[in-house]
């Protein structure tokens, strides 16, 4: 009897190993994605983000009224403190110029998303290039490379030493008042963050055994950087990019709030709307509430998703 169970066991073991040996392997990216799908935080974040993205795309088309339509101008008297709140015709009420808040919110979503994405892209791409060059020089460039890295990093330190809002305000002051300015200002502030992150991550990977192994194989330096070091240094940068989308939206709103945003009334943006609402906060707090809640929820979505990504990509959880 014991013999039978033993052979059964062996049989089962063989089957188990057989199933494990067939099929393609699971790369770390795929495993991270699998973990991400299991995370509640990631799902909530993803739902919020996709709603926001859909809104940004279709918003201007489904908005019941035009952004500049002042059809109800005669009903709003800001000077006397008379405002119109939510009602059947205007779900979110009217703003101080008698425009439909709901339509403006829908149309503004696109601008808000664009500011977040473009600002983050500016920071990510520039930071990635600077950090990548610096990291590659420091890990494989020998003494000369270390010097190059040192110079680049001191420059980045200078950027980092400036208060981000001050830096953004000065850029906006130089370039004038427009949405592009806000994007660039917010993006530039992100550059040192991405550069330092990628460089640090590359330095950590540069000392790894597999990099040494690639060197001993005779792989060219450029290829070592591209195919060995960078793929392994990406995780924290990806996480940071997701989290940056949230901060970029908030910072863009802050800059708009300071009056540096796009003054064009035809292109509403949540941050600008918030600024305009603050003057009438005493009489019409709801006017500020809509854009504020919109910004908070989107930022929350990106933050939740970013945090979930961090957990999914964390190599310490690799089993």
């Amino acid at each position, binding site marked *: 009897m014991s013999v039978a169970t033993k052979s059964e066991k062996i049989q089962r073991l063989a089957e188990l190993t057989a199933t494990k040996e067939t099929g393609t392997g699971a790369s770390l990216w795929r495993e991270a994605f699998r973990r991400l799908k299991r995370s509640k935080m990631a799902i909530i974040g993803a739902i919020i983000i996709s709603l926001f993205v859909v809104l940004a795309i279709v918003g201007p088309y489904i908005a019941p009224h035009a952004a500049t339509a002042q059809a109800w101008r005669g009903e709003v008297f800001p000077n006397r403190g008379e405002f119109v709140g939510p009602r059947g015709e205007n779900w979110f009420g009217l703003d101080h110029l008698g425009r439909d808040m709901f339509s403006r919110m829908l149309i503004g979503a696109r601008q808000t998303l664009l500011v977040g994405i473009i600002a983050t892209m500016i920071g990510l791409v520039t930071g990635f290039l600077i950090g990548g060059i610096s990291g590659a020089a420091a890990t494989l460039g020998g003494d000369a490379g270390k010097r190059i890295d040192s110079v680049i990093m001191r420059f980045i330190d200078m950027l980092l030493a400036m208060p981000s809002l001050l830096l953004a305000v000065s850029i906006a002051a130089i370039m004038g008042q427009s949405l592009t300015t806000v994007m660039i200002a917010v993006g530039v502030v992100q550059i040192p963050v991405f550069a330092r992150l990628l460089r640090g991550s590359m330095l950590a990977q540069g000392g790894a055994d597999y990099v040494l192994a*690639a060197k001993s194989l005779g792989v060219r330096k450029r290829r070592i950087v591209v195919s060995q070091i960078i793929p392994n240094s990406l995780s924290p940068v990806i996480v940071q990019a997701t989290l940056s989308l949230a901060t970029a939206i908030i910072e863009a709103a802050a800059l708009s709030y300071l009056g540096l945003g796009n003054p064009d009334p035809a292109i509403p943006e949540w941050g600008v709307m918030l600024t305009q609402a603050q003057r009438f906060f005493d009489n019409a707090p709801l006017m500020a509430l809509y854009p504020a809640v919109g910004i908070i929820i989107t930022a929350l979505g990106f933050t939740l998703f970013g945090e979930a990504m961090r957990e999914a990509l964390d190599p310490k959880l690799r089993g």
Partner: protein
Amino acid sequence: MSLLELDGVKVHFPIKKGVLFDRTVGHVYAVDGVSLKVEAGETYGLVGESGCGKTTLGRSVLRLVDITEGSVVLDGTDLAKLPNEEMRRFRRRLQMVFQDPLGSLNPRQNIESILSEGMVAHGIGKNQEERREKIKAILERVGLPSNALARYPHEFSGGQRQRIGIARALVLEPDVIICDEPVSALDVSIQAQVVNLLEELQEELGLTYLVIAHDLAVVRHISDVIGVMYLGSLVEEAPSDTLYAEPKHPYTKALMSAVPVPDPEVEDRRERILLTGDLPSPANPPTGCRFHTRCPWAQAEKCATERPELKDVGGGHRVACHYTAEIASGELAPTRPTGIEAVTETEDALVKPAEGEAEVPAALLPADSTTKPDAPAVKEKVPAAAETPGDPAADAVAKDQDAATPEASGKGPAGTD
């Protein structure tokens, strides 16, 4: 002419300090003048305790670290003088197997990609199809299923990963493979498999190995010639059997005496040489013979001032000691306590610590506490031994040992104070 010849290889790492501009404040003498020859088809084993520079030496052969001085000649070409690009192409003939099987494989590449990396770099195989065929053949040769191709390193066991590491070296068809602690990260049962695989491959493909290890049993098993390193230089080199049968350098003697014997009776009675002090810092190596600060046979003259060369004492046995003959003949008595008598006479007191240390061949612990209680002549030498560098650490270890050996505990500290 030998396939691989190292002549006076030195690797010194600068110690740098400074805020804006680094300046060199000293050097770590990781490898300090090593000359050795590896014959084609042979296995050269390199042993030594942690920090003696054996890994650095292995890496310097591949020029993964910069060679400060000396030459590494492979088949008539001096690698130390090759320009970078030529060195890169030359690496095809010299491959390396690493200690950490997982760490040395890129976690984001699948096995096919890992194995084709080197082939692409050296233009082996016209296209991916051709390379895949070759990879499949080699995977089979090292005992991995061919469906491993699409899988990733973390999906394999330790032994399998090391096989992948070996396969990666083999696809380039090298002449020499440097194995840096190839089995020390593996389970004992897996170690045997990997060692056997290395031996089979050598027979089949006529490979030459330079095996770096601290496990004396493994090295003895696979090596034809063994070199013993201490603090950046070779102290002894001999054919494997000769070295184990009659070690001549005091350091080798101590190293060999740390290998446990499976027979408990022999284990109880066998002679053990316990060294005092720690390995001196390679940033500030002792003058003269590097070993004189810990050598039980150290003499007042010569040892501290003159650095001994490796001298052939017959039969390919080379020893770097001024007093090889005198020590062998028993003419010179140990000037420091060696622990030999203590081991033979006060058995009960020493069984415990001896067992604990036996597992760590490189742990050549201080012998202060093991001095025979009723040998005042030997005990008086203890303060002299305490002058060696790394003295506080030695004392700490000595006190630990005192606690473990009740008989010696009363006498040991008294002797040191």
